[in-house]
């Protein structure tokens, strides 16, 4: 049995359906992420789990028991708010002790667990500081410590890294992973940043307009997105419009207008004749200077229109002769190999017949 079962929940605000028939299971010990653009209903789902909001239809079960009618203060679920919502009149230690005091723990236990948790988030020397004396990253850690100290069954995190600058954000991502592994509390994490979701999560539910588009492990979401929304939302991807000419166990033969034939792998059933797009990641494309190789399988001629040198990799934008713009990633391994192709160079773009995924319309 899953720790948290969400069964067909729907939430309406007036005529707007903020959450539409969402069903998902969250397992104990998991780092689960709700990922989606702003306004897709992530916070609304978190608020229903925490008890600040209730679904218009559907049920939630925690450890098999229905959550309906249980007020937030009774649920073994704590939240890390994006704004942190630290109590300004309490010290760091006072903030962290708060849930323990509310739970009526003994004075000794409160002192011991507060000290332990301060150490867990590396704030041993900040126990007597007030929140306004802390940096953004430190406030973030206090909010985490406060959410974890009373060992909730679930910790909900609503875009907790949103207010931090990029560098700090990256460091906190590492700390979050370590922290979750160490305390073993189940995390339900909300973000609109796909990289963050990929880096942190065991599983991700990609949401769009109140619905779950795809629920999978990060690798699968990245390599085999189920539809254009997911493909587009996660990472960078090239979409090549094409129709299915032939489908067999070994692969697909696609016809792309203006390009010719493309060989692609099969993922699930696809009907011959159906239209769609081959979605292929930039790192699966290779660029070579042999423009004359066009005509071979999955080789297409084009010209470099732009490149972006990023240090470890260079991103090329190549316009194929049929007008399609593709993005390709070349690693810069090896001395003196930082860059190969100049703007205007004629090149061939190539990829393996088992790369990419065909997404029917």
């Amino acid at each position: 049995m899953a720790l948290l079962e969400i069964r067909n929940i729907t939430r309406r605000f007036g005529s707007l359906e903020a959450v539409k028939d969402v069903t998902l299971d969250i397992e104990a010990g998991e780092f689960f992420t709700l990922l989606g653009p702003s306004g897709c209903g992530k916070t609304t789902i978190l608020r229903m789990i925490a008890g600040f909001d209730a679904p218009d239809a559907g049920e939630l079960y925690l450890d098999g028991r229905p959550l309906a009618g249980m007020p937030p203060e009774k649920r073994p679920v704590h939240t890390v708010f994006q704004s942190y919502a630290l109590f300004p009149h309490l010290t760091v230690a006072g903030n962290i002790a708060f849930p323990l005091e509310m739970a009526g723990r003994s004075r000794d236990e409160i002192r011991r667990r507060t000290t332990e948790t301060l150490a867990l988030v590396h704030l041993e020397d900040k126990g007597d500081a007030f929140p306004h004396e802390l940096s953004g990253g430190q406030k973030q850690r206090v909010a985490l410590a406060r959410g974890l100290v009373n060992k909730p069954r679930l910790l909900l995190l609503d875009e907790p890294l949103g207010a931090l600058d990029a560098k700090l954000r990256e460091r906190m991502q590492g700390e979050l992973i370590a922290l979750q592994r160490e305390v073993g509390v189940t995390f339900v994490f909300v973000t609109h940043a796909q990289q963050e979701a990929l880096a942190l999560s065991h599983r991700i539910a990609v949401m769009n307009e109140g619905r779950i588009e795809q629920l999978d492990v990060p690798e699968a979401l990245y390599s085999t997105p189920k539809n254009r929304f997911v493909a587009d939302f996660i990472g960078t991807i090239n979409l090549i419009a094409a129709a299915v000419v032939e489908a067999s166990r070994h692969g697909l033969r696609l016809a792309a207008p203006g390009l010719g034939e493309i060989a692609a792998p099969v993922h699930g059933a696809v009907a011959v004749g159906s239209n769609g797009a081959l979605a292929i990641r930039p790192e699966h494309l290779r660029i070579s200077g042999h423009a004359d190789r066009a005509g071979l399988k999955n080789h297409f001629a084009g010209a470099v229109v732009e490149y972006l040198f990023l240090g470890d990799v260079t991103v090329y934008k190549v316009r194929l002769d049929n007008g399609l713009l593709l993005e390709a990633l070349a690693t810069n391994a090896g001395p003196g190999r930082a860059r190969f192709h100049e703007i205007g160079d004629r090149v061939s773009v190539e990829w393996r017949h088992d790369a990419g995924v065909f997404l029917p319309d």
Partner: protein
Amino acid sequence: MPASSSRTDRSARLTRWLVTLPPALFLVVFFLIPALIMAAASFREPGEFGGLAPLAERGFSLDAYRFVLDDVIYAWILAKSFAVAGLTTLLCLVLAYPLAVLIVRSPKRRRDLLVLLVILPFASNFLIRIYAWMIILGPLDLLYSPVAVIVGMVYVHLPFMILPLYTNLEKHDPALLEAAQDLGAGGWARFWCVTWPLSLPGVLSGSALVFIPVLGMFAVPELLGGTGDLLIGNLIKEQFLDNRDWPLGAALSLLLTLAVLAVAGLSSALTRNRGQM
């Protein structure tokens, strides 16, 4: 560039002076100097027909203070005045807090209306409102009793408690209450652990705005409390208008001012110890 930065420094300093000078002057002319005149008067002798005896003939004396210290009745009246002020402040707080919470929780449009209602009594004359209370309390057999004094004091000063509380409570971040509830706090715990401590600055300024004027108030005790129930305010007023003992009146009001300053100092020390809110 040091030259230009010192010029902006100078113009900033000039602006600061221009802005702070008028209020400072006002306070010096209408508060500090009168207070010093009053302090000086308390060390003089009373004139035969009121006012002060000529300095050349009688000089300075400590008679007024000796008089106050000799008779325990003065200490008693001061203590009673403090008790009335304290009780009034407490009652105002108990009545104003739920009202302020109610106003803050009302939808925006109703909120403005309620704030207007709180300050509406100021639109009619203070004495008329006190006379109205005489008409209300008379038939209830409460007029000219300590109860009437307290009722009047609370009535007059209630808005001064509601408004600072409202201003404070309005600024509270609702996310804090949500966080508290999320972390296991029920209704009462949310109030006592979050709302109340965060509202202490409002409680303290409201209390000061009630406590201090009540100490000096003489109209309410005189009209509603009758002659038997003197407070320090009445006593001071009597020295100036009826007994014509200006030095005694000045000494009493100086002592009252010192007592008020002590209370104000104590309350601001309390706020500061609470850290930044």
